[in-house]
């Protein structure tokens, strides 16, 4: 089934997009994109003297060499009787736009691997009937059926998801500041319909004006400092222009940037270099007059709609320059914090067109039976140290099945308790308990040997079945939990927020727990090595190891990460002496422990295959009592 693509047919740049799995994606242009302009390609059409047709980036690149054969901004002439005369042939603006649409059709068909026959195309809100008809004609010439023309501000709003029907009407202001033009549109959104209330703008105001100001500043400063006018040389101005554009973009996220152009020019005195620091404050000072000019259009649109700034419920930003902090601050000063976020302002119009296309193609009316949900919160079990080990991540599409193999924490542990949890915090205790059960009959073995496979099966209705199976005996137990989706949306949000809030703390706690587990394993294996080595270990080595073990035991339950790490390191280094002594050679690299411990976990290794389980409840408290010499901790 062929798709209906969305097309943003812009004055300077155009882009096409389509919907895949509920998300809109831009279709990349075959010959490349404008370097600074995101994923769009320039709206240029050219005919070479040899009669070759060029569209997009290649057309733009030869514009200066072939001005008579190059056409740009044909959109400005749509709906008029104007005719382009190129090398003796006449073209209407519709025909020129059709070349652009044709290129989009070709690129889309190649990219999607399927015929593309229908499209939704965006037009400015202020386009009149003649202009709209011309756009439709362009589509027909290109072999594309334009199933709908959507206003650009409406498309932008769709991309932000504003089409969900609310109880009362919403007033939306779309602020579209592009490379060369400003368009302000106020719309009323109610009962699923976008209605344009007023439009205003400035056709000679945009990002390139901002670049101009910055470039002029740099050149003036250089003239002041070094006495050379850089404007004279084309090559030089090119380098300055590129550096200025880059700096402008960097200053949207950094407070300061540096322009470094060595060998920018040469005079009789020798080569000259341009090194200048530009702060965001300086840029904002240079750019302020342009931002202020926007105010006129905004006030015009508001008064034409007979509203006040307070009436506007949402502001949508479109266009590259709206990413600048000064522009966003300017808007917020007028309207308050109402800027919609989450969508790339350079792609939102094309994306909105794709969304409209999908709606028209009925793609969003998926067979009920196939509407798949996602599980909102992570599901897992509790493991050694009171930690939660995730089995199914949040936002996994259901139905789904996942399993993992675990082991025992203590020697001769014959049962494991499966404590099923739901939530985002790393510590089990901070999450929601869904259920518990016990699997017993595990043959007595050293810790870490048994293999217990824990499987989570979450069906399409959110019913979770957790199974634990001992691979040796094939004994299994399971539990069915019906209310994994019982939490309300607010409760889910609260849990997620708590996870973010406590992220740093939790990370710390987890690190300490992991270190403690590591310490316990290391102590176990060291003591085992000592026992197995017996008399073969020289007394002084034995004493050293015992001392280090005692040291680690002392510090592992404290909360000082660095101290524990050091003690682990010390013990790890010291215990290698056992091997050295027994083999009578210098210790080699790696953890050469003698009497290889049954727990395959070398000190410092995080067991990821066989993780350790909480011992059975009646063996006492949660952690630690896996050696007989240790007293169970309260």
């Amino acid at each position: 089934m062929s798709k209906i693509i969305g097309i943003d047919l812009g004055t300077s740049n155009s882009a096409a997009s389509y919907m895949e799995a509920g998300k809109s994606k831009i279709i990349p242009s075959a010959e490349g994109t404008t370097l600074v302009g995101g994923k769009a390609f320039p709206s240029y059409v050219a005919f070479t003297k040899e009669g070759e047709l060029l569209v997009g980036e290649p057309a733009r690149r030869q514009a200066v060499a072939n001005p008579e054969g190059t056409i740009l901004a044909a959109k400005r002439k749509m709906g008029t009787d104007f005719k382009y005369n190129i090398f003796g042939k006449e073209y209407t603006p519709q025909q020129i736009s059709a070349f652009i649409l044709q290129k989009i059709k070709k690129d889309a068909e190649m990219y999607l691997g399927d015929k593309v026959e229908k499209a939704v195309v965006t037009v400015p809100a202020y386009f009149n009937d003649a202009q709209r008809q011309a756009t439709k004609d362009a589509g027909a010439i290109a072999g594309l059926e334009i199933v709908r023309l959507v206003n650009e501000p409406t498309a932008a709003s769709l991309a932000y998801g504003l089409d969900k029907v609310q109880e009362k009407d919403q007033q939306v202001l779309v602020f579209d500041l592009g490379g060369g033009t400003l368009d302000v549109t106020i719309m009323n959104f109610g009962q699923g319909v976008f209605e344009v209330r007023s439009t205003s703008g400035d056709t000679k105001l945009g990002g390139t004006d901002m670049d101009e100001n910055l470039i002029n500043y740099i050149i003036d400063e250089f003239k002041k400092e070094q006495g050379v006018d850089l404007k004279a040389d084309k090559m030089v101005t090119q380098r300055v222009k590129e550096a200025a554009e880059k700096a402008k973009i960097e200053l949207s996220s950094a407070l300061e940037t540096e322009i470094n152009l060595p060998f920018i020019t040469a005079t009789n005195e020798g080569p000259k270099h341009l090194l200048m620091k530009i702060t965001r404050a300086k840029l904002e000072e240079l750019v302020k007059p342009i931002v202020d000019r926007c105010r006129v259009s905004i006030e015009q649109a508001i008064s034409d709609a007979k509203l006040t700034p307070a009436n506007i419920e949402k502001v949508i930003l479109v266009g590259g320059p709206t990413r600048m902090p000064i522009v966003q601050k300017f808007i917020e000063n007028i309207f308050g914090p109402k800027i919609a976020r989450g969508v790339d302002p350079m792609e939102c119009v094309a994306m909105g067109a794709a969304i409209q296309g999908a709606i028209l193609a009925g793609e969003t009316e998926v067979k009920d039976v196939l509407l798949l949900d996602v599980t909102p919160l992570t599901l897992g079990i509790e493991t050694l140290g009171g930690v939660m080990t995730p089995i199914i991540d949040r936002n996994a599409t259901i139905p789904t099945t996942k399993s993992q193999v675990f082991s025992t924490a203590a020697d001769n542990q014959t049962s494991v308790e499966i404590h099923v949890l739901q939530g985002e915090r790393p510590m089990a205790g901070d999450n929601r308990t869904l259920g518990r059960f016990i699997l017993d009959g595990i043959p007595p073995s050293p810790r870490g040997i048994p293999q217990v496979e824990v499987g989570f099966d979450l069906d399409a209705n959110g019913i979770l079945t957790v199974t634990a199976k001992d691979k040796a005996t094939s004994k299994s137990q399971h539990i069915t939990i019906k209310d994994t989706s019982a939490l309300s949306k607010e409760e889910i949000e609260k849990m997620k927020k708590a996870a973010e809030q406590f992220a740093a703390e939790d990370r710390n706690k987890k690190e300490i727990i992991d270190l403690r587990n590591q310490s316990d394993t290391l102590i176990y294996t060291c003591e085992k090595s000592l026992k197995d080595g017996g008399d073969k270990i020289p007394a002084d080595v034995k004493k050293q190891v015992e001392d280090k073990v005692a040291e680690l035991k002392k510090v592992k339950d404290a909360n000082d990460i660095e101290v524990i790490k050091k003690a682990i390191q010390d013990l790890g280094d010291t215990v290698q002496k056992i091997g050295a002594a027994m083999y009578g050679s210098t210790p080699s690299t790696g953890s050469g422990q003698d009497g290889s411990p049954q727990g395959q976990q070398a000190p410092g290794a995080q067991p990821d295959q066989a993780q350790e389980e909480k011992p059975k409840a009646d063996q006492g408290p949660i952690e630690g009592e896996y050696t007989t010499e240790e007293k169970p901790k309260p």
Partner: protein
Amino acid sequence: MPDEELKKLQEEVELVKQQAEEYLNGWKRTKADYLNREREIDKEKIEWIKFANLELILNFLPIMDSFDQSVKNLTDDLEDNEWANGVLKIKDQFESFLKAQGVEKIKTLGEKFDPMFHEAVAREEDLSRQSSESDGGKDEIVEEIQSGYTMHGRVIRPAKVVVK
């Protein structure tokens, strides 16, 4: 069993059979889509790896531009200067590095202008320069303003040139 009930059951069986077939086909299609998508991703992965360093290389090119500029400014009296020569060797190192990454400079001087590889920033006559001696005819590149590069054959930055 009364006829009516029998008929109802038979209709139900038909309906359910149809549904089952529909579901099976849908299932098959989904499985096929999944396998096809995996195949696509494997293909895409090769592209990702090939061009993983693209961003890095693009950010590196302005540094090469500065180096090119420094060479242009090398005065004759520095010809025997060992330090200057050493720096030139560093430039060579950078160029070898780029080559190893599959990055190559686009040929400009003397070539015919090709918008797939070059971007015209000026015509010779507009710069009021003396007409160059070349007689390659119109559309011949007479000066390179900024180097262009390809990576694994793909143009990553077109060369900025002056056209006759």
